[in-house]
């Protein structure tokens, strides 16, 4: 008989149907029957009625039924030598199947039992979804059973559970990949769901198993520890010891057991970045040592781990002498007790001077070198290197165990384990998509922790953004948006969508023309916010070329202001400050030493416009450093941490070839036709390497502004002046001929529109100042500036040139 067949009348199927018919309420009724029969029987016998024996005797029938349900029916074991699907189907599904089940019927049933409900909550794959994709033809069912068997084998499931059937129903649907994509899932994710459900089942079973903890006489052979009990934290007995051993920690845990059980220096330093799970390994070891059934060597069995906290010790003994004496006392007590392992958590605090730390090397080094007192130290990788550099003897005395950050799969498992506690404490339920999103966004935005710590941190903070108790991928996105002030979710609000659709108009409210540049930048942002861009690159990388004063920097500022939330979102680097090879270090310096470094600023503010001004002046090695940033949106800082630029727009500006651009425009050549030739010329000039220019999404040429555009610039400048005068309740208007005069006086072909701002501001602001002081204009009034007044202030070209030259010097 093939496994694809289904025998409705098999003994196992019959038992499953009996189990289904004996619901929990019926079992309660049976319990009541037993109680009533026995009480009534005994009462009858006591009163001398022999019919009581019958009642007592017949109470055995419901009592046996209850035992049978609990002992066999509730969790029907699969048949080892299976011949048909009913031999391995989980009882809750099997008991509900009809004689000739269709895939549609199976889909309906799995929605009613635990495994199916697990998928409905954790993945958003409910019974309705499964019914939609299921056939109502019973001849399709054997294929479903075949697929289910394959998945059960793949996931190591002992039975074909409802969860396995959910995946099988999805998998036999031909377009399942596209369907799952709508739920941000892949087939591997749903298969992982079966493993997750099995894992929860295993953890619960493991938890139910009786513990062997040594009993009441366990500690009778070991010494009193009054001081340790006061200052240390016994993680073995205070409930923090972990009973779950993670695959990710297995290697480090085995090494730890080996070091602590072998002869020689019985100390181990767990070294790894913060968040990697060093303390968690110690908690797991504590649980393992106290479990009489675990496979630890006899000399470690029932040892207890005491955690010493540097801050608590310092506060208890503020003076150095007192502290040294206290630490000595604690270690002596531990040694004499003969069953204590001391753990110095964040041990670097015991080896360096500073706030909240004190150098105890003189006390600890001899113990680490010579004593057989078992010690575990947990240390941050960088701090360990610093301590080792300063004190080679200390490094030699320690048995270092490296704890590496967890991989993607390991992190997901760690999160699944933690969820059991987090969900209980926060009263929420996490979806699988939230876990994946926490991993993805944690890896991208959280820099101060390693995996799995960074994903866990994010996952926990996402609980505060749950909707009706359900934590989704969107909750995780919101958590990171609020805590890091960035935008990750696709544009949802009407306001934001409107803003994106009319981005060009908004930008043009503060800058004139350069429509091509404005257009490509706006498109990049729209792509990003619609979720259709490449997530592994910056939002956009652009090089703006053109003469000075044509709006290159202004566009970056306008973008920061209009979309990114203010001009303070502009991370501006004047690349003429990065002209030597040594400046590379400054560019990627640690935020603690150089808060203004590019990496430090992006760590604080990943959602920004990065403006690399006058890029041609930077040292070639600086440009080489920027290659990875432009290509992958990643730059490693001096500590080797990956800093993400994937939520930033990178704009590099350059005046290179400005004269050539102006010359071509003056000759009436269309700038767009000239673009590729110009880039070739730029490469030939050796100013930029081809691989550097190739990294930009677009190289955009800004052309000098024409007179009518400059008049619009004058209007913008006057608008700015009016904004400044708002406080005085005074406004300014400038006549058309006066504006034209200002354009003529302020425009310099070498410097573009920049000096014109100074000329206009000088002329307008001086006039207003005089009129306000003379009382010619009062609050609520309007100052009208005419040609004569402008001429009087900027009387000659010479005066204007003076102002222009001032701005050149600036």
């Amino acid at each position, binding site marked *: 008989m093939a496994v694809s067949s289904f025998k409705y009348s098999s003994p196992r199927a019959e038992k499953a149907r009996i189990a289904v018919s004996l619901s929990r309420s019926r079992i309660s009724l049976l319990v009541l029957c037993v109680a009533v029969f026995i009480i009534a029987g005994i009462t009858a016998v006591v009163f001398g009625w*022999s019919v009581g*024996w019958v009642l007592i005797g017949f109470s055995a*029938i419901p009592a046996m039924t209850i035992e049978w349900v609990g002992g*066999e029916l509730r969790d029907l074991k699969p048949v080892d030598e299976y011949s048909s699907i009913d031999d391995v189907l989980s009882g809750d599904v099997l008991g509900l199947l009809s004689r000739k089940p269709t895939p549609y019927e199976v889909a309906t049933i799995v929605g009613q039992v635990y495994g199916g409900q697990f998928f409905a909550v954790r993945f958003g794959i409910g019974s309705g979804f499964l019914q939609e994709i299921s056939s109502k033809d019973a001849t399709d069912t054997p294929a479903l059973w075949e697929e289910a068997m394959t998945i059960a084998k793949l996931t190591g499931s002992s039975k074909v559970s409802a969860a396995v059937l959910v995946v099988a129903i999805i998998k036999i649907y031909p377009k399942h990949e596209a369907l799952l994509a709508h739920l941000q899932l892949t087939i591997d994710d749903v298969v992982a769901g079966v493993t997750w459900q099995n894992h929860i089942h295993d953890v619960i079973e493991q938890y139910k198993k009786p513990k*062997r903890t*040594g009993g009441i006489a366990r*500690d*009778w052979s070991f*010494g009193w520890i009054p001081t340790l009990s006061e200052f240390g934290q016994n993680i073995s007995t205070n409930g923090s010891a972990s009973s779950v051993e993670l695959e990710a920690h297995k290697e480090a845990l085995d090494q730890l057991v080996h070091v602590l059980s072998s002869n020689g220096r019985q100390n181990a330093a767990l070294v790894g970045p913060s968040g990697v799970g060093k303390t968690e390994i110690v908690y797991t070891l504590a649980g393992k040592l106290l479990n009489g059934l675990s496979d630890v060597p006899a000399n470690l069995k029932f040892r207890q781990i005491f955690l010493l906290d540097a801050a608590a010790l310092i506060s208890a003994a503020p003076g150095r002498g007192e502290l040294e004496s206290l630490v000595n006392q604690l270690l002596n007590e531990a040694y004499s007790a003969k069953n204590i392992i001391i753990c110095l958590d964040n041990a670097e605090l015991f080896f360096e001077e500073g706030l909240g730390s004190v150098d105890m090397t003189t006390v600890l080094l001899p113990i680490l070198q010579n004593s057989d007192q078992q010690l575990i130290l947990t240390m941050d990788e960088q701090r360990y290197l610093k301590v080792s550099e300063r004190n080679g003897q200390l490094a030699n005395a320690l048995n270092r165990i490296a704890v590496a950050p967890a991989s993607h799969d390991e992190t997901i498992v760690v999160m699944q384990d933690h969820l059991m506690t987090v969900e209980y404490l926060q009263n929420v339920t996490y979806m699988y998509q939230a876990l994946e999103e926490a991993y993805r966004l944690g890896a991208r935005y959280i820099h101060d922790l390693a995996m799995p710590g960074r994903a866990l941190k994010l996952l926990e903070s996402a609980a505060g953004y749950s909707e009706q108790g359900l934590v989704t991928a969107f909750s995780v996105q919101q958590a990171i948006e609020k805590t890091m002030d960035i935008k990750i979710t696709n544009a949802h609000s009407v306001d934001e969508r409107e803003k994106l659709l009319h981005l060009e108009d908004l930008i043009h409210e503060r800058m004139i023309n350069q429509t091509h540049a404005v257009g490509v930048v706006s498109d990049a942002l729209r792509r990003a916010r619609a979720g259709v861009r490449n997530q592994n690159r910056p939002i956009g990388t652009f090089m703006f070329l053109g003469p000075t004063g044509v709006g290159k920097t202004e566009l970056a500022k306008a973008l920061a202001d209009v979309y990114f939330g203010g001009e303070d979102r502009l991370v501006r680097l004047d690349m003429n400050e990065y002209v030597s090879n040594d400046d590379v270090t400054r560019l990627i310096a640690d935020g603690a030493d150089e808060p203004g470094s590019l990496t430090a600023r992006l760590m604080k503010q990943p959602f920004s416009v990065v403006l690399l001004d006058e890029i041609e002046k930077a040292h070639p090695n600086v440009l080489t450093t920027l290659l990875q940033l432009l290509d992958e949106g990643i730059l490693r800082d001096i500590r080797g941490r990956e800093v993400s630029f994937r939520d930033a727009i990178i704009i590099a500006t350059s005046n290179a070839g400005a004269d050539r651009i102006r010359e071509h425009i003056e000759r009436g050549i269309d700038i767009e036709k000239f673009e590729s030739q110009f880039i070739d010329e730029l490469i030939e000039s050796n100013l930029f390497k081809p691989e550097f220019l190739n990294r930009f999404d677009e190289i955009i040429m800004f052309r000098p502004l024409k007179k009518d555009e400059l008049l619009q610039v004058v209007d913008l400048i006057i608008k700015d002046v009016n904004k400044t005068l708002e406080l005085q309740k005074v406004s300014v208007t400038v006549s058309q001929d006066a504006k034209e005069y200002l354009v003529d006086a302020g425009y310099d072909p070498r410097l573009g529109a920049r000096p014109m701002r100074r000329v206009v501001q000088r002329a307008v602001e001086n006039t207003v100042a005089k009129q306000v002081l003379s009382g010619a204009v009062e609050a609520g009034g309007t100052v009208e500036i005419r040609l004569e007044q402008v001429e009087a202030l900027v009387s000659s070209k010479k005066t204007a040139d003076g102002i222009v030259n001032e701005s050149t010097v600036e």
Partner: protein
Amino acid sequence: MFLVGILTWWYGDGWRERAVMVGGRIARSNDYFSVGLLLSTLFSPFRQISAGRVDGSFATQLRAIADKLISRMIGAIIRSFMIVFGLVVILLQAIFGGVVLAVWLFVPLFPIIGLLMMVIGWVPSWR
């Protein structure tokens, strides 16, 4: 099916599981009274009292040895008492478990026994 199923399980896996359960309870009691551990450390100093090495004059060392001996004796007495007490509890538990396992075999017969008892008409007399 119901009757066959329940009786097959009752005299097969059901009885075996019950036996495992009884064994588990005995193992738990054994762990609780730590009989093995107590035996292996029967003469160890109790709570490491006076267990450390003492340097000094011959008289001091002699006193230390005496102290250690007393500590070991106290330990041995307390442990022996606990071993005996533990063994008694474990034995009682084993007997009770055995009775349960034996009674288990007769439970399906209870309705028949009840009927027989009614037919016989015997009831305990309280006078």
